[in-house]
């Protein structure tokens, strides 16, 4: 496998532990091609890890007023970073190396996109986000920062 094997799993989780949007991407840094390199069995693990880290987030959300909670959990070599919006929507990114600042920038872009989604009067909180434009823009943000 050429280039970096770093892969990211990104998920937006609603207020009822429900995923609103999911994406996987590889890194473009260090000659990466941006293609996620998760093995098949990692797929469900990513979801388990993301889901279980909500326990930690529910703890941290009362300890900090920040929206960007940085890394909140770790499972084996997978870190979980979290951004928590005012409306209790969680952006989670699973990654294998700590890098707080690029992830913050990525999350900031995601928040922008999420707010825009929310401005759509036909969208309601906790609804799955299926817009392809959203998907493209998220991936562009990932390419830019991760």
């Amino acid at each position, binding site marked *: 496998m050429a280039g970096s094997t770093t892969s990211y799993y990104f998920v937006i989780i609603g207020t009822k*532990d*429900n*995923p609103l949007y999911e994406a996987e991407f590889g890194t473009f840094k260090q000659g990466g091609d941006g293609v996620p390199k998760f093995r098949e069995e990692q*797929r*469900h693990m*990513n*979801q*388990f*890890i*993301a*889901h*279980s880290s*909500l*326990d930690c987030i*529910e*703890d941290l959300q*009362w300890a900090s007023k920040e929206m960007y909670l940085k890394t909140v959990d770790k499972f084996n070599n997978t870190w979980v970073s979290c951004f928590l919006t005012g409306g209790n929507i969680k952006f989670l990114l699973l990654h294998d190396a700590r890098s707080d600042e690029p992830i913050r920038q990525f999350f900031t872009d995601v928040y922008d996109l999420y707010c825009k989604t929310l401005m759509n009067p036909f969208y309601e909180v906790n609804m799955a986000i299926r817009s392809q434009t959203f998907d493209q823009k998220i991936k562009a943000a990932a390419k830019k920062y991760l």
Partner: protein
Amino acid sequence: MALPLEIPPRARSAIGASKASPMYNLRSSIVSTGSTTSLASLFAGTGASLPRDIVDDIKSVIHHAFVPHIAVHVSDDVNDIIREKGLPDLYQLIRSYGEKVQGRITARDSQGSSVTFEDFAVRFVRLSDIAQRPDRNSRNGAGSTLRNGGQWDGASAESMNSEELPLVDELLDLHLSHAEELIETSLATEAESHTGQAFYLLYLRKLLSGFPVTSHETFSHPVACLIAISSRNPSPIDTLRQLYKSGAEMEIPGYVNKEYLRYYVLVHDEDKDDIQKSTALFEQMKRHFGLHCHLLRIRSSMCIVSDEDSVPLAKSQWLPASDELAELHSRQEDDIEGDSLSRFIHGSDESAIKTMIREMVAQSIIPFMERNIASWNDQILSRRKGIGGRVLSFSRRFLGSTATRSATNSATASNFDPVTNSYDPVTPEAQMRKLADWAFMLRDWKLAYDVYNTIRTDFNNDKAWLHVAGAQEMTIISLLLTGQAITPKIRTDTIDVYLDAACYSYVTRFRAFYAALRCLLVTVELLRLSGGSSAELAAKWAIKALDLNIRPTVGRALISQRVGDCYAVRQGAGSGGWGGRRRKAAMWHVLAADTWIQLGKYAQARHCIDVAMPRYMSTEFVYIRRFLDQLKLDSGHVNLLDLGSMKISDDTEKDSADTDDVDEEKVDIAEALIEEGEKPRFDGKRRSILIPQTANGDAPGMMTMEESFNDRPL
């Protein structure tokens, strides 16, 4: 939704008619020739047959793991009598009775106050077994070499180098298969089979059963030696002397202190010999050997079930895995009637043995230990003061040692022998360790903690890494047992640091996986008992223990499940369960279920799935759902016949999910109708307190409720 559920081969075998592997069938055919009671007897001594109070009490497992070891050294004529009874030797006859000493045992702690134990125990070992388990180092002493600047290929470490671990796994596997079999044949319901923690406790107990004889700890070194002759012996006194001598000359590792207590027993054959003669002989024994003597009157005739006072021979719960495996295998080979006959002894024999053990422990061993603890405590400490010029306020103050190594002392030669990776038993360091271990065995956790805490630095200065690791391990364990509140500071500065260091030493320097695993699992249990944040720490270290167990073994599955149990202990606070770890617990139970399925232990897997399922009941994570459906299928949780209907119901579920929103709205309107009149009445006369608004809209962070709401005028 309809997920593509593939039916794997292992699931097919799980759901199909033949769930059993060939080996499994073989064994089931063996047991099926017997009655159901013989089925049970094959596995008596598993968690299922243990008294509940012991099963539940993890602390008692830990207490009973660290107990005084008593070597058994007997003449051939004693074993002749026992063989007539249908048992191989005296050791096998008495060992299970040491696991619960009759009545209360009282000991004095270092403060001089007496403590009572309801459940004191000792462990009997054959003296020859201690000798037979020498570390290879003492045999080919020069073989060990110093590598890479202080890394030891220490042979004493090798003896704890996890030989026992695969055996424990194998044994548990056997027990679990048996439990599966009972479930499959409907002899036991799943609830009865203790799929919960019973097997984990069994695993833990087996892990703690066979402490290897090593230089860095003295738990398995004998505290006393039981020397026995029988009334049949022609020259009793000489034989006793000889046994004393042969015991002392036995080739036991040099670091084992041979100055243990000798306890002399005369075994009198009630059926064949004259009690008058034996009593006379016993008097003579007392004159020669002092007070530590006992006359054990037992019958040499074989006892069968139908005899009037027959009682079943107590099962040993603390048999090392290797022994228990050997026993199970040999019993499978034996024909069935021979098997059942050997399991009974006369009631009078049982009470005689119990009395002997009680007397020995209460009147000889405990006082002997107390005396030694007291004198070591005084002597060694004062001597250390003299040598090192250090001031030690230990055992008087908790966390007492403020000792810092002085320059003069580091210049003196160390007592540590790097060739054998051990201290000679007469050195202060070895005696201190022994003092701490003995205090620990008498459950004087505070004293033990103080001493472990102190010798740790000594070992460290000598670069005796194995000993350092041992002291670190016991520092934590004794600290947790003192019941002191575990503050966050203790968690991060003591427990985390020492555990990490000890594991590093055990695993990386010595490849002593057994020691590392024991250290981790005992700590995990104690932390788990503390609950709250400690339980989370327990989970963290249990996960670390998984790293020692990469392959999917029974141990790995059990520990994964335990991680879940640890998280589950952290329930969180209040009605909202804030700070709970429910999702994490569920995830680990699912992971354990996955491992169980790989091992073919479907009942265990089903249990784990049942525990985890509520958390994922309506999850919208597609892969989680698919994985769980697959697990259910593999473990036989879902019947293959139901599969078709499951798909259909999934589809309808999808449809209904699409219309859910509409439904909800309808419900909302209906609710609105019902809730009519729920609007709080507002009379405009409510008394209230004005909350000052800050300019930037920030909450007055430092302001407390009292300050802001003190009767301020509106």
